[in-house]
């Protein structure tokens, strides 16, 4: 690993002044499970690494406020997967956090890091998309909330501006009963990046929200407001046609080492059908 300086700001203001002074030569460090690999292989060569894990303004990890659950950017996957409030209101996010890497990774990898790294295969992204999360970004100009549908651009790139820092992810609490699930396909059980990662949310009005990743340059949300997908009595052919439409934007890369585009497309449809079935079942089961 090439040498770099290390800063551990204890306030957001201090973090911003470092980011301002160093610009592109500074890299933010949260859990480090992506960054340290890049520091080691030389694809990231910062002058200074800015560790944001000891900023009290980024605590508590998870808090329930009026109408929403706010998850600090530095909250690790194990905390999210085991948090009662996340499990009760946002089960697909808890399920996604529970399958990121293995235990050792989940104990370090953060939600903020997972989305800012912007891997198309990020497992938390589909869940955040179906739940309509807002990304809270703070910069020298102040705070802005970025709807997650406007956040991802392509692998490694987001709509964050230089000098902006993600402090939290906000999830609006559902106004009525919902059913949701996260599913994914990996090459092997246990510890792998997803070949397809997908989340589904169904609400009592019959609206189905499907989001999927690892089948294109960025994770994508698709919504069925017709009620057909969530309708147990609806015709299977009609559902299949609707799913085709919803997955039309998927464009799995032919160059991936994990799975062929044909396999990914087939698994996307399979997981999509299963996820709708499970989400509808969970909605009915309360």
């Amino acid at each position, binding site marked *: *690993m*090439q*040498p*770099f*300086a*290390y800063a*551990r700001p204890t306030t957001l203001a201090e973090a911003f002044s470092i980011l301002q002074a160093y610009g592109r030569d500074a890299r933010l*460090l949260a859990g*480090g*499970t992506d960054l*340290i*690999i890049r*520091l*080691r292989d030389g694809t990231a060569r910062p002058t200074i*690494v800015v*560790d944001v*894990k000891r900023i009290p303004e980024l605590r508590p990890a998870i808090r329930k406020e009026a109408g929403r659950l706010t998850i600090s950017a530095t909250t690790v996957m*194990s905390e999210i997967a085991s948090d009662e409030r996340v499990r009760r209101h946002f089960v697909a996010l808890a399920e996604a956090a529970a399958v990121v*890497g*293995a*235990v*050792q*990774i989940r*104990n*370090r990898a953060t939600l903020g890091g997972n989305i800012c790294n912007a891997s198309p295969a990020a497992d938390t992204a589909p869940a955040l998309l179906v739940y309509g999360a807002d990304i809270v970004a703070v910069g020298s100009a102040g705070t802005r909330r970025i709807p997650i549908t406007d956040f991802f651009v392509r692998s490694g790139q987001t709509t964050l501006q230089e000098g902006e820092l993600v402090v939290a992810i906000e999830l609006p609490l559902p106004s009525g009963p919902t059913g949701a699930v996260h599913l994914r396909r990996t090459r092997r*059980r*246990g*510890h792998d990046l997803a070949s397809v990662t997908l989340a589904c949310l169904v609400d009592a009005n019959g609206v189905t929200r499907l989001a999927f990743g690892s089948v294109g340059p960025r994770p994508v949300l698709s919504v069925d407001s017709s009620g057909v997908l969530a309708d147990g009595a609806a015709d299977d052919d009609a559902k299949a046609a609707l799913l085709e439409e919803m997955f039309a934007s998927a464009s799995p890369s032919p160059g991936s080492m994990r799975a062929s585009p044909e396999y990914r497309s087939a698994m996307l449809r399979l997981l999509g059908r299963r996820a709708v079935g499970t989400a509808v079942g969970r909605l009915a089961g309360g």
Partner: protein
Amino acid sequence: MATVPIDLTVNGRGRSLQVAPHHTLLDVLRDDLALTGAKECCLVGECGACTVIVDGRTVDSCLMLAVEADGALVTTIEGLAAGGRLTPIQEAFLDEGGVQCGFCIPGQVISAHALLEANPHPTRAEIEEGMAGNLCRCGCYQQIIEAILATVEAAHP
């Protein structure tokens, strides 16, 4: 590049060190503290050979900078057998034949130890999930799982 002072507790013993910011916790454990139980292997967080416990949770020490461990409580494989007596999980690894070449075993034992601390009555599925971050190229997975199950059984007959 300037070094940074850190204070941490490793296996119950306070340590004050000067570390380079680009050195990982694994580098410092092995090279500065001569604790060579945790192994350097894949360096991308897939194999688990470098697993140690930091503040009660297992981490891949190859993916954590030493400066991030400032103030932390670290337990390595060297910290388990107090007074030279093996812990029940270590004994069980021997009894069940969980060890062939031994390279991955410090990480395996640390993960098994942390798993049982967090969940004293794991099911087989929970053990498989809890140990998924530790690869064994000798293929001793069955024996390792049996060793963990035997430890649970012996503690709660």
